[in-house]
C-alpha cells in the first residue's frame, strides 16, 4: 500500500495511515477492519477522527502534490465541446476549429455548432417561425449566437417576397369575401327596388349603376396611359356622385334582415330624424307635410313610426290574448319542453318550424328582453332615401318628380311587430317569444328562416301592391288623365305627359308600401284567428278506440 502513487484519491491516501494506525491502536472498538478496498470508504468514515491527523503527518513530509484531475472532464483548461463531448486533447488536424460564440463558458467545434443550428432552423422545428429562422440562443446563457452568412441579393429578395406574400393571404381572402357580399347585396337591392317601384321608376333610380356595371375595367386601357388615368378618375367621380346609391343599395339587405329582430327597435326611429335633418330643400319639396300625397322619401321615412305604433297596438290589444291561447293548448300539468321554442298549435299545422324546436343543435341563450322573431320590416332606408333624394334632382331636373319620389327608395318597411306566429305560406321565423323564463334558442334553421323571410319581404310587398291594384277600382289607382287610356299605370309615367297624382295609391311604390303593410296586418289577423280557433278546438279532442270488431272478424277469434 505504501507503493501507491501520491496522486491517488484522498481516500486511498489515508490507507497507509490506517495501517499504521491499526498497528498503533488495535484495541479501539470502533474499528471494523477489512482489508478489501470496498470498505475503505466505510473505514474512512469510521476512523475520521484519527485519519486526518495521520494524513496531516504524511502531508507535512512531502510537498503538497499538484492537483491532478482524474480525467479531462474536470480540467477547466481543456476545452470540451458541449455538443460532441470531445476534448481539445482529441483534436486531429481534421477537426473543425473551436468557436466561442457567447459570454458563458461553453465552447464547441464549429461543425458541431453548424449542425446544431441547422437542426434548429429546419422546417420540422419551425411550424410557425419566420423564414430565416428564429434567433439561435445558447442553451446556457441565452445570448444570441451570431452567424455570418454570405449574402446573395437575389436570395434575400425572394425571401422578402415570400414573407410579404405569406402575410397578404388573410387580407386578400377577407377582401374577396367582402367584395362577394357587397355585390350580392347590391344585386338583391336592385331586385327589391324593382319589385317595389316597378319597372320605370326602378330603372330611373338605378340607371347610374347600370353603366358602371358593364364598364370595362380600367386596366384594359393600359395602352394609353393618359386615357386610362382619365377614365379611372371619371369612374371614381361617378361613384362619388352617386354614393348614396352605392352605399344604400347594399345596405338594404342587411337592414331588412336586422329589422326582423328587436335590435332594430332602438335604432330605427332615429334614422328618419337623420333623414329630415339632411333633407335639402329641393323644388319638389319632399318635406311638405301639408301636401298629399306625400313623397316617397317622406313615406318611407315615416315608416319606423308607423311600425312602432303598430307594435304598440299589437302589444296592448292582442299579445295577452295570444299568450293565453297558446297556453291553452299546452299540457295541463305545466310547461312542456317545447315552451322555449314553439307555439304548439304547430302540431296541427305541421310546419317545419317544429323542426326548430326539436333540433339537436339548439343553442340556448339567455338574453334579457327577448330578441327573436319579429316580423319587422325596417324603414332603415330613410337614410338612403335622403341621400338618394339629393342625387336625383341634379341629373333629372326635367322630370316632375312625383313629390320627389325618384330616388332609390328602400323597400317598403312595413311596420309590423309580431311575436312570431306560425308561418303560413311565407316563412316567417317560427319562434315564440312569449317565454316566461326569457330564454331564447337559436338554431341554424330558425336563423335561415328569418333571413329568408326578410329577404322575401320586398317581393311580397310588391306583389301585394299589385294585388291591390287589381282589387281596387281603377279610379283610385291610376291618374284621372290616364283612366281613359289603357288601364295601365304605366301611362302615368309617359314623359311629357306627367300629371301629378291625386291619390296616394296611384304610384307603384305607394301601392307596394300600403300593400306590404296590409299584408302584414292581414297575416297577423289570420294567425290570431287560427290561434284562437285552435285553442277552442283543443277542448274537443278525443282519443279514438281501436276498432276491435273488424280485427276480431279477420283473425277469426270468437
Amino acid at each position, binding site marked *: 500500500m505504501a507503493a501507491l502513487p501520491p496522486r491517488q484519491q484522498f481516500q486511498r491516501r489515508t490507507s497507509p495511515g490506517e495501517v499504521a494506525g491499526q498497528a498503533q491502536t488495535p484495541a479501539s472498538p470502533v474499528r471494523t477492519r477489512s482489508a478489501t478496498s470496498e470498505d475503505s470508504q466505510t473505514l474512512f468514515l469510521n476512523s475520521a477522527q484519527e485519519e486526518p491527523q495521520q494524513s496531516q503527518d504524511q502531508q507535512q513530509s512531502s510537498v503538497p502534490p499538484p492537483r491532478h484531475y482524474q480525467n479531462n472532464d474536470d480540467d477547466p483548461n481543456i476545452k470540451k465541446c*458541449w*455538443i460532441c*463531448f*470531445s476534448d481539445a486533447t482529441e483534436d486531429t488536424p481534421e477537426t473543425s476549429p473551436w468557436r466561442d460564440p457567447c459570454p458563458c463558458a461553453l465552447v464547441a467545434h464549429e461543425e458541431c455548432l453548424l449542425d446544431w443550428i441547422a437542426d434548429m432552423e429546419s422546417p*420540422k*422545428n419551425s411550424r410557425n417561425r419566420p423564414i430565416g429562422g428564429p434567433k439561435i440562443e445558447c*442553451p*446556457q446563457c441565452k445570448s444570441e449566437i451570431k452567424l455570418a452568412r454570405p449574402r446573395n441579393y437575389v436570395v434575400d429578395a425572394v425571401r422578402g417576397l415570400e414573407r410579404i406574400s405569406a402575410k397578404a393571404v388573410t387580407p386578400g381572402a377577407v377582401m374577396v369575401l367582402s367584395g362577394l357580399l357587397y355585390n350580392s347585396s347590391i344585386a338583391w337591392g336592385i331586385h327589391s327596388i324593382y319589385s317595389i317601384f316597378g319597372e320605370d321608376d326602378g330603372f330611373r333610380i338605378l340607371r347610374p349603376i347600370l353603366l358602371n356595371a358593364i364598364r370595362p375595367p380600367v386596366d384594359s386601357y393600359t395602352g394609353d396611359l393618359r386615357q386610362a388615368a382619365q377614365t379611372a378618375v371619371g369612374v371614381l367621380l361617378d361613384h362619388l356622385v352617386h354614393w348614396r346609391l352605392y352605399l344604400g343599395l347594399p345596405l338594404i339587405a342587411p337592414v331588412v334582415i336586422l329589422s326582423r329582430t328587436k335590435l332594430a327597435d332602438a335604432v330605427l326611429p332615429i334614422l328618419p330624424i337623420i333623414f329630415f335633418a339632411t333633407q335639402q330643400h329641393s323644388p319638389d319639396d319632399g318635406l311638405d307635410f301639408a301636401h298629399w300625397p306625400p313623397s316617397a322619401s317622406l313615406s318611407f321615412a315615416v315608416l319606423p313610426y308607423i311600425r312602432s305604433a303598430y307594435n304598440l297596438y299589437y302589444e296592448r290589444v292582442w299579445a295577452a290574448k295570444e299568450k293565453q291561447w297558446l297556453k291553452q293548448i299546452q299540457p295541463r300539468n305545466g310547461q312542456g319542453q317545447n315552451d322555449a321554442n314553439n307555439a304548439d298549435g304547430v302540431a296541427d299545422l305541421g310546419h317545419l318550424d317544429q323542426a326548430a324546436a326539436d333540433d339537436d343543435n339548439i343553442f340556448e341563450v339567455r338574453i334579457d328582453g327577448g330578441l327573436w322573431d319579429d316580423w319587422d320590416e325596417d324603414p332603415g332606408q330613410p337614410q338612403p332615401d335622403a341621400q338618394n333624394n339629393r342625387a336625383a334632382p341634379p341629373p333629372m331636373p326635367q322630370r316632375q318628380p312625383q313629390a320627389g319620389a325618384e330616388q332609390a327608395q328602400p323597400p317598403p318597411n312595413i311596420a309590423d311587430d309580431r311575436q312570431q306566429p306560425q308561418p303560413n305560406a311565407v316563412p316567417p321565423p317560427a319562434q315564440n317569444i312569449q317565454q316566461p323564463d326569457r330564454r331564447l334558442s337559436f338554431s341554424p334553421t330558425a336563423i335561415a328562416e328569418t333571413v329568408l323571410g326578410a329577404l322575401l319581404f320586398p317581393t311580397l310587398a310588391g306583389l301585394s301592391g299589385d294585388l291591390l291594384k287589381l282589387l281596387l277600382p281603377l279610379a283610385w289607382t291610376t291618374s284621372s288623365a290616364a283612366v281613359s287610356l289603357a288601364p295601365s299605370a304605366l301611362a302615368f309615367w309617359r314623359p311629357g305627359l306627367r300629371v301629378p297624382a291625386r291619390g296616394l295609391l296611384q304610384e307603384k311604390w305607394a301601392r307596394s308600401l300600403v300593400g306590404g303593410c296590409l299584408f302584414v296586418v292581414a297575416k297577423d289577423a289570420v294567425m290570431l284567428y287560427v290561434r284562437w280557433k285552435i285553442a277552442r278546438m283543443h277542448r274537443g279532442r278525443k282519443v279514438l278506440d281501436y276498432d276491435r270488431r273488424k280485427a276480431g272478424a279477420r283473425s277469426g277469434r270468437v
Partner: protein
Amino acid sequence: MAGMSSKRLQKELAKIQGTLPPGISLVSAENLREWQMDLSIPDNPIYPPEEKYRLRFQFSPSYPIEAPEVVFLSLANPERKIPLHPHIYTNGIICLDLLDSQGWSPVHNVESICISIQSMLAGNTKAERPPGDAEFVRSNRQRPRDINFLYHDPTV
C-alpha cells in the same frame, strides 16, 4: 453524423460507469444505441423507496443534435411499473419539455435527463394519471418525438 453520436455516447457511457447520483443506476448499455437505466425516488410518499422504475433510452444517429427517446418500461421480471404521475402515460410515454425537439439541446446528456425525470417525480404531489390517458394509450400511433404535447402545467 453517426460518428459523432457514437463518440459522444461512448464518452457518456464512460462517465456514467463512474459515479451516478443516488437513485440512478445503469442497467445495460450493450447496444450503444439503446440503454436502460433504473430510477428510484427518495422521499416522496407516492413512490415507495424500494420501488424502481425502468427507463429506456434510444439514441438516433443524429444524437446529440436530436433528442433521445426516453420512455418508462413496464416489466414483469424484475418487476418494474410505470410511475404514477400526471405527465406520464400508462404506456410509458413521458411528457417533458426537455425531451421534445423544441426543448432539447445538446448541452443535456443522459445523466441530466435522469436527474430531471427524477426531480419531476420527486416533486410530484398528484398521484394520478394524465387526463385522457386511456384514450391516448389506445389511439396513439406516433413515436413520442412526433407527438405535440402542450406543456401548460407548471405546477408539476
